[in-house]
């Protein structure tokens, strides 16, 4: 074991430590938070368990992992019996999760470190149901069951409600009691289903299917009173969640108390905290209808009153218009017009007279001018004619010494042909006449 001088080799020391450690801790349970989780290709799983002050390396060899048989219907450590498949710790082992690990302490000589060789793993503080719940939640979330985008609105004041729950119990009582104060009258058809126990999930899923097949209801109400996680478990079954997910009719779920959330709740189009809350979400309070009705009634009265007032105004306007257009009024207007015209007439006469006088004076002046000019013209003409007459006077040449021969009859002898020799003629001179006898007659 040792050398003569008491000095150990590293290997010797390590072997001594291994012997003591492994002897002291052949099987131990450790609780801690998982960190540094590694799953290399070898299939062995390496991780650390830690708390605030310390950490320990752990290795979970693949051979040990095979002993985690999740087909077993009871837990080999706790004796807990499972209804369905038990969740595998292989799946639940994640960084940050607090786990219980059982195994032996061994020394890993190659690194000079001690470690826990894990044989059994279980989630700490969580029962198998809680683990199964988390598992299914992850799975259904990945399938889009809880997606906000697929949530449908519930009909307001639903008139045809399919109620899926137990025919007896607190849930239906609470729902109907509160519902009685709300809504404006609804046909509710109960589809009885067990809400607890092994048969519950399939009954609920069947009822969901039946309601959808009948296609009568506007909304499905799925409710159950409070209970433990085990009591509520049917609502975490995949078959129920799937039935809710596939329902063509919107689903309102109110399962358990406020703190409880089942997968059916999460899948439903709307989640009520309790069955009573479901009734609140489904129907508006009756007072709300009464208030709406009162408002509408008042609005009707006001509208009619305004309408009548408006008509009355219109009527008054028309009466006014009619008065304006009445024959009496027309006559009065005519009289008024006549009066106005008379006044105008009276005022117009003197103006008209003055006007005529002005025009008369003007014309008189024009006339005078015309006559004057005409006279002038005539005087001139007379003078001219007088002059011409003077020039044409046969006695005129007498003044210049010419003589005028006249027959005895007084005719002017203007040609020798008018006289014969021996004929008595008169010769007129400037200052008198003389008689003469024609001697010879002959041309010059």
């Amino acid at each position: 074991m040792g050398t003569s001088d008491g000095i150990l080799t590293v290997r010797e020391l390590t072997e001594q430590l291994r012997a003591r450690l492994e002897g002291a801790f052949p099987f131990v349970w450790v609780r801690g938070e998982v960190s540094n989780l590694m799953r290399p290709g070898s299939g062995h799983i390496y991780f650390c368990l830690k708390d605030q002050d310390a950490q320990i390396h752990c290795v979970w060899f693949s051979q040990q992992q095979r002993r985690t048989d999740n087909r077993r219907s009871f837990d080999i450590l706790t004796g807990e019996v499972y209804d369905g498949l038990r969740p595998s710790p292989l799946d639940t082992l994640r960084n940050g999760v607090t786990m219980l690990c059982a195994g032996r302490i061994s020394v890993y000589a190659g690194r000079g470190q001690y470690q826990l060789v894990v044989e059994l793993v279980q989630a700490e503080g969580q029962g198998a149901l809680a683990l199964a719940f988390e598992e299914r939640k992850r799975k259904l979330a990945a399938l889009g069951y809880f997606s906000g985008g697929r949530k449908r609105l519930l009909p307001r004041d639903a008139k045809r409600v399919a109620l899926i729950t137990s025919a007896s119990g607190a849930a239906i009582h609470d729902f109907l009691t509160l519902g009685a104060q709300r809504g404006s009258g609804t046909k509710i058809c109960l589809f009885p289903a067990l809400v607890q126990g092994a048969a519950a999930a399939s009954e609920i899923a069947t009822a969901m299917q039946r309601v959808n097949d009948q296609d009568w209801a506007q909304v499905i109400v799925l409710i159950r009173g409070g209970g433990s996680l085990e009591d509520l478990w049917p609502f975490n079954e995949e078959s129920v969640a799937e039935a809710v997910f596939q329902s063509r009719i919107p689903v309102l779920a109110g399962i358990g108390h406020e703190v409880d959330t089942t997968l059916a709740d999460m899948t439903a189009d709307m989640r009520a905290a309790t069955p009573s809350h479901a009734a609140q979400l489904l129907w508006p309070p009756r007072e709300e209808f009464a208030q709406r009705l009162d408002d509408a009634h008042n609005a009707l009265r006001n509208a009619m009153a305004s309408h009548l007032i408006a008509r009355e105004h219109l009527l008054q306007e028309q009466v006014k218009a009619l008065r304006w257009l009445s024959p009496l009024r027309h006559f009065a207007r005519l009289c008024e017009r006549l009066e106005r015209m008379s006044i105008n007439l009276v005022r117009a006469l003197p103006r008209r007279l003055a006007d005529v006088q002005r025009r008369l004076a003007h014309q008189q002046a024009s006339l005078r001018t015309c006559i004057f000019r005409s006279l002038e013209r005539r005087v001139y003409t007379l003078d001219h004619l007088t002059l011409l007459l003077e020039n044409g006077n046969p006695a005129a040449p007498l003044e210049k010494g010419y003589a005028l021969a006249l027959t005895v009859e007084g005719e002017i002898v203007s040609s020798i042909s008018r006289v014969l020799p021996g004929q008595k003629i008169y010769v007129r001179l400037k200052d008198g006449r003389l008689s003469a006898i024609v001697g010879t007659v002959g041309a010059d």
Partner: protein
Amino acid sequence: MDGTKEENFFEEKMARLQDIVSALEADDLPLEKSMSLYKEGLACAHFCKERLEKARHELTVWQDGEIRPFALEKEAVDTAEECP
């Protein structure tokens, strides 16, 4: 399942009442027409009020493949226990 025809009477009458109010507010109706609308509106309001006062949920149960009337059992309510 029947009864889908009458179920919306309340909402229909309420909607009609609202329409009548809107029509009266529009103020382009002959007086006779508005009077008859007003009367109809009053009748709607009366109907709705009566309906609301009498409003009850009608409870049935799907049992053995048919719809039957259903009433909560008093004991069941009192004990308030879920069936196992």
